């Protein structure tokens, strides 16, 4: 049970406090309700580039990182298709410094041309390092546009291409900042050895006078129901054939989400999973295979991916794969398949909860989804799932017409 206390400031900032009296550290986590899905399709990658720019310093804090390092603190951030999340770890008695720097950059970021130019270069190098300069690195750049035709999940957080990053101007950056960075679009989560009154006082001291921003309403184009199987094949200089089969699934707040989460584990988490058993062990066609979900807020994807030992197996593999999916849908799974993955889920959850940073971050994320207390009630949803529910969901999901796939084949194997 992760206890927490919530309050909201006049300017709309939502605050969650979680007390942990056993730690000498504190975590200050700030989640902004903006991600790559909110970008202009013609200027993608901006949310992530902007995350870099948030470390540029602000009106009263010349150097954000230095101010924290001076008190033994450390900060980082990540951007996803849904959110942008910033976190600070520091000794608990230095918490006020975290609130000072974090509140200052919430509305008074001090951007210079030099910041923009440097971080643009840094992000371009990040783009190359993670997506372009290694085999299969660009999988999601290729796969997203196949899986999503309309919804902005059809581009990756890093952006569609380098050209978009190169085109961002100071006007674009400032417009983005003014649109999305303000107290009423943020959730502040604080964890550590403090008292409620102390936290309320400190938060009010540093955040109360920040002006509220414009009310935002998100109006994203929803993905139309997929009607037929989509497939993209790429032939290039890679050492092995890689395959990705993605199936449409419900969003994070759907009642079916926990069931689908466990389905992905039944299919492809670990050596006793159905796909591993069939394709690694029995047929011995793959060198790796796994299944996972993207976990996005809007309807997203369940992904089955792996690599073949031999490119010439692709044809047989694909035929067998669809027969196997049909077989799973027709015959369903056994109770023990469900129990296995559920128990593993519970263990993982208990270990994850030990981390102060995970607790702070999850509280903020669940609050965004509707209520921070989901952090405690989520497990119950997993505990009551039945094999019948799993089987019903399997039938609904594992349809070929709901699948988009990407196959990356070695060049030499080009079938003329």
């Amino acid at each position, binding site marked *: 049970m992760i206890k927490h206390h919530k309050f909201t400031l006049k300017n709309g900032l939502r605050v969650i406090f979680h007390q942990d009296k056993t730690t*000498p550290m504190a975590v200050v986590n700030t989640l902004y309700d903006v991600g790559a899905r909110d970008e202009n399709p013609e200027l993608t990658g901006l949310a992530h580039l902007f995350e870099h720019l948030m470390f540029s310093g602000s009106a009263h804090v010349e150097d954000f990182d230095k101010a924290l390092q001076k008190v033994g603190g*450390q900060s980082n951030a990540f951007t996803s298709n849904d959110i942008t999340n910033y976190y600070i770890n520091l000794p608990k008695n230095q918490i006020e410094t975290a609130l000072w720097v974090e509140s200052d950059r919430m509305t008074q970021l001090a951007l210079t041309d030099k910041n923009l130019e440097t971080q643009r270069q840094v992000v371009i*190098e990040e783009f190359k390092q993670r997506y372009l*300069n290694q*085999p299969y690195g660009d999988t999601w750049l290729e796969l997203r546009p196949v899986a999503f035709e309309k919804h902005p999940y059809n581009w990756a957080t890093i952006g569609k291409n380098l050209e978009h990053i190169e085109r961002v101007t100071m006007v674009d950056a400032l417009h983005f900042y003014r649109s999305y960075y303000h107290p009423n679009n943020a959730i502040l989560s604080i964890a550590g050895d403090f008292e409620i009154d102390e936290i309320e006082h400190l938060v009010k001291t540093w955040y109360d006078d920040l002006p509220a921003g414009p009310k935002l309403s998100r109006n994203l184009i929803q993905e139309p129901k997929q009607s037929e199987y989509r497939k993209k094949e790429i032939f290039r200089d890679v050492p092995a054939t890689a395959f990705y089969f993605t199936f449409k699934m419900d969003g994070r707040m759907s009642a079916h989400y926990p069931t689908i989460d466990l389905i992905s584990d039944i299919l492809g988490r670990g050596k*006793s999973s159905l796909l591993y058993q069939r394709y*690694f062990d029995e047929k011995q066609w793959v*060198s790796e295979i796994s299944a996972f979900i993207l976990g996005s807020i809007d309807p997203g994807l369940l992904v089955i991916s792996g*690599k073949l030992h031999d490119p010439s197996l692709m044809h047989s593999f694909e035929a067998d794969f669809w027969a196997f999916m049909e077989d799973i849908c027709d015959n369903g799974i056994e109770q023990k398949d469900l129990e296995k993955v559920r128990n593993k889920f519970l263990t993982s959850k208990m270990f994850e909860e030990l981390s102060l940073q995970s607790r702070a971050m999850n509280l903020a994320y669940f609050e965004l989804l509707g209520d921070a207390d989901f952090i405690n009630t989520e497990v119950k949803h997993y505990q009551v799932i039945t094999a019948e529910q799993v089987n019903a969901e399997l039938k609904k999901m594992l349809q070929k017409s709901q699948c988009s796939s990407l196959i990356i084949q070695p060049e030499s194997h080009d079938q003329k």
Partner: protein
Amino acid sequence: MTKNRTQAPEVGALQNISLVQPEIHIAKSGLPIHIIREVPNAIFHVHIEFGAGKMQQKKPLISSFTADLLFSGTKELSQLEIQEKLDMQGAFVNVESGMNRSSLHVYGLLNQFQATFEIVKDVLENASFPEDKFEMHRKAALQHHKINMEKNTYVARREFLKALFPSNKLGEVAEESDFLNITAEDCNAFYQEHFTKNIEQINLVGPVSEEHIAIVVDIFEHRYNKTTEAQVLDLTYAPVHHYIEKPKALQSTIRIGRVLFTPKHEDYFEFDILETLLGGYFGSRLMQNLREDKGYTYGVGSGITAYENTGYFFISTEVGKEHKDAAIEAIKHEINRLREEEIGADELDLARAYIQGQILKSTDGAFAQMSQFLFAKRFDLPQNHLNQFLNTLNHITPKRLQELAVKYLDWEKMVVVVVG
């Protein structure tokens, strides 16, 4: 409520480091069991160390293959049966092979402790390394290797280790032929020799009871073998510069470094501070220069890798290919600047405060505290070494740091590997 935003909040005093020492049980055989019970959830992590690392293997890959295949079957149970039982208990196992030892990690739920360790016991007594599982693993591992060889970072790390340790096993890397030469019998022999009877210590984190400890003692006690002595190695190396060009690469991986020492060396902790200033944190000179000023890279860092026998210092980064030479020049410039000028008081204070925070964090929670204990034990340091380190940190001077830079950061002693 009023506040002055232009004024940084008052800096709090340094907090005391309170390091929980594990309970130490010594079984009759002499096997040490270290226990930290202060964990809020009913889970456990048992970490078993075997004197079974790369140093002990007679040819490449044996230690890692044995680790990977340890749970691939026993006399009675197939891999699938083992895995399904563990899954049903909500347990996870992970076997890592390192330079001087292998580690078996078992994670699970406390109420399944006994059942989980029945499996572990069976594996330690009866692992069978079935031929078919071995062949599947060989095939998959070889493909992973081939894919990794397409990654500049992987190739650079191999070339770097080969150059640093040309005359001992630390520099031994696996080639494709090694994947073809290894046999299931090699693994089985290595297992019999090192896993069934070479346990060095057991570390237990979780709210365990005496019964849980008794289970562990019962299974492992007679498998104790006194810590494998670290071999004395031939540490001569030549400071070569090695460039492997990849015409299609967009980025180049750079690794620069030298053979240095273990944490037992008298200069280790002072050098650690110097290394942090150079490339060990976001505010470091390399990060500020290569990333925040020039935008050559997404990240650059330095570090020290420590073994019982020796250690090495390294700098690592991936830069746009067009910046490769400029980046090496910038690194050289920063290294030489540390040798030629004293570090300013402000910069030292900043690093000092940052490191203090990191030390505090490194003692936060049962798992972190166990790691600290094991680090001290492994390198034969006093258990209050963190307080000693804090003391060193508070008293080190710019002059001393410059001396260390002159002594250890000589460009002429550096191996430079560039791939891309």
